[in-house]
């Protein structure tokens, strides 16, 4: 998954590495150039000192050994010279039997020379005229200590860049988590929204998030209103049709129709169907499908009231009990859930001898609702039939005994499943399995 934190870190690391390495190498180059300039001055002064050591003796020019620096005497000391006169060459004793490739051009040699003992020599050549003689003096100095120390500096520089990288990454992580905090809060609020613990997102967010949050809030409001409007429209239509239907039904009782019993029966049947259809569609319209945030069924708040109502409707002495996980919130529309449970419990109360139980269980991928009674129950071979009757209402008359048609509709709308079974109390058990709204897609695939 893409993460803002990670892409920011990657960018920062790339920039830091590039900038750090470029800075390190550039400063090393600049430093080395400065050092070489200073060494060049030293070497030039060295050649001038050697020029002074070339003196006129009794047999032509000779090298005054007294004037030589002792380091030119120790073998492989790292300091060497070569003095060339026409017909004469003096090598420093320090060179011993080594013969580096001395440069001929005056000035600092562009390349380091290979010297004895793996030394790398920085060489400088100067051309002089003295006592009418052309004198070429080359001096060289071991450069390996400088190279070694540069390697060490480079290594510690790399270590420093690494440390800086680490520190910057930690700081950046902290800064980003601070900056992303409002986003995280919005994410939490959306999660609450899904669980129905919240109706709107809080508007107090940074400028960058403002449009997003406003748009979500606007959409929530809009969806809510649209749903309400369509429910109202269907409700209005249903009510508007009720009166004409009632008028038509009463018209059936007119004497004019008594002479035509067949016609009356046919009209009666058709009107009955229209009535069923209307009430069925009215019920369906109320099934919102995806539940709107905030409309969830809160067991602790709704169930006591529901059971109180049931107790007052049905004969006294019925033992009604319910059991649900603490703080249980069913993520479906409150009204629909009331309708579902109301119908099932109402049916159970009708048939129960003395006890009715409701149990709600939370499972990994959904909820299980169990409604038990201690009534006569339904024989196994007729259970399928009872369910089918509930599911296909339009083939049967209203009030077929179970009154569970709406239950079938609601369960189907929620992609759930329901079945009838032998209950532990001896009567019927209705088992309703409801997958969590978010898992519907998977549940459908599983089927």
């Amino acid at each position, binding site marked *: 998954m893409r993460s803002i934190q990670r892409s920011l870190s990657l960018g920062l690391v790339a920039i830091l590495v590039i900038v750090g390495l470029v800075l390190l190498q550039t400063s090393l180059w600049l430093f080395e150039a400065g050092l070489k300039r200073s060494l060049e001055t030293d070497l030039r002064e060295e050649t001038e000192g050697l020029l002074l050591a070339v003196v006129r003796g009794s047999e032509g020019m000779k090298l005054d050994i007294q004037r030589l620096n*002792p380091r030119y005497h120790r073998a492989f000391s790292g300091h060497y010279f070569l003095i060339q006169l026409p017909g004469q060459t003096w090598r420093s004793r320090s060179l011993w039997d080594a013969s580096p490739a001395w440069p001929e051009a005056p000035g600092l040699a562009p390349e380091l020379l290979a010297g004895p*003992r793996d030394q790398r020599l920085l060489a400088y050549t100067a051309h002089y005229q003295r006592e009418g003689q052309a004198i070429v003096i080359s001096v060289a100095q071991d450069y390996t200590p400088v190279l070694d120390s540069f390697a060490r500096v480079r290594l510690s520089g790399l270590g420093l860049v690494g440390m800086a990288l680490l520190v910057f990454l930690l700081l950046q992580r902290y800064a980003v988590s601070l900056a992303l905090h409002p986003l995280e809060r919005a994410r939490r609020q959306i999660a609450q929204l899904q669980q129905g613990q919240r109706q709107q997102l809080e508007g107090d967010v940074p400028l960058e998030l403002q449009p997003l949050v406003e748009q979500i809030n606007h959409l929530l409001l809009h969806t809510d209103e649209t749903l309400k409007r369509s429910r109202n429209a269907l409700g209005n239509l249903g009510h508007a049709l009720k009166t004409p239907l009632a008028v038509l039904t009463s018209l059936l009782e007119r004497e004019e129709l008594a002479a035509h019993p067949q016609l009356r029966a046919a009209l009666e049947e058709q009107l009955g169907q229209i009535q069923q259809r209307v009430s069925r569609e009215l019920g369906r319209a109320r099934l919102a499908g995806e539940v709107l945030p905030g409309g969830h069924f809160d067991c602790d708040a709704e169930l006591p009231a529901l059971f109180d109502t049931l107790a007052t409707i049905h004969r006294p002495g019925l033992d009604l009990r319910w059991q649900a996980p603490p703080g249980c919130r069913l993520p479906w529309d409150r009204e629909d859930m009331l309708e579902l449970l109301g119908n099932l419990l109402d049916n159970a109360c009708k048939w129960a001898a003395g006890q009715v139980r409701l149990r709600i269980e939370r499972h990994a991928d959904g909820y299980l609702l169990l409604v038990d009674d201690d009534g006569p129950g339904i024989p196994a071979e007729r259970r399928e039939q009872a369910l089918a009757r509930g599911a296909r209402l339009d083939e049967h008359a209203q009030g077929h005994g179970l009154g569970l048609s709406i239950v079938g509709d609601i369960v189907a709308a929620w992609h759930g499943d329901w079945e009838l079974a032998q209950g532990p109390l001896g009567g019927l058990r209705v088992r309703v399995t409801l997958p969590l709204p978010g898992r519907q897609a998977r549940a459908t695939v599983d089927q």
Partner: protein
Amino acid sequence: MRATLLLCTMPLVLLLAATPAASRDLDQDEALRLRREGLILPLDGLLDSALARHPGARLLEAELEEEHGRYVYEIELLTRGGVARELELDARTGEVLKDEVD
């Protein structure tokens, strides 16, 4: 100390070099010539074997002597412990003739 001593004795050595003697010091130009003629091994290679006997030691000074027609390198090393050692190597074969504390 040794270098200045060497400096003072250098002209004397050069003078002595002209007269035939049982043992004489050779200078860098002779050493280069002998190496080029293949009569002696390069000092660089000899030092590698000398330093192999005393790891971490540093070269203090090297001299080439001719003793009875034989070329001998006298090498002074400063070991890691700061002890000066004197080694003598046969310049032609590289054989260690002597290895003792100076």
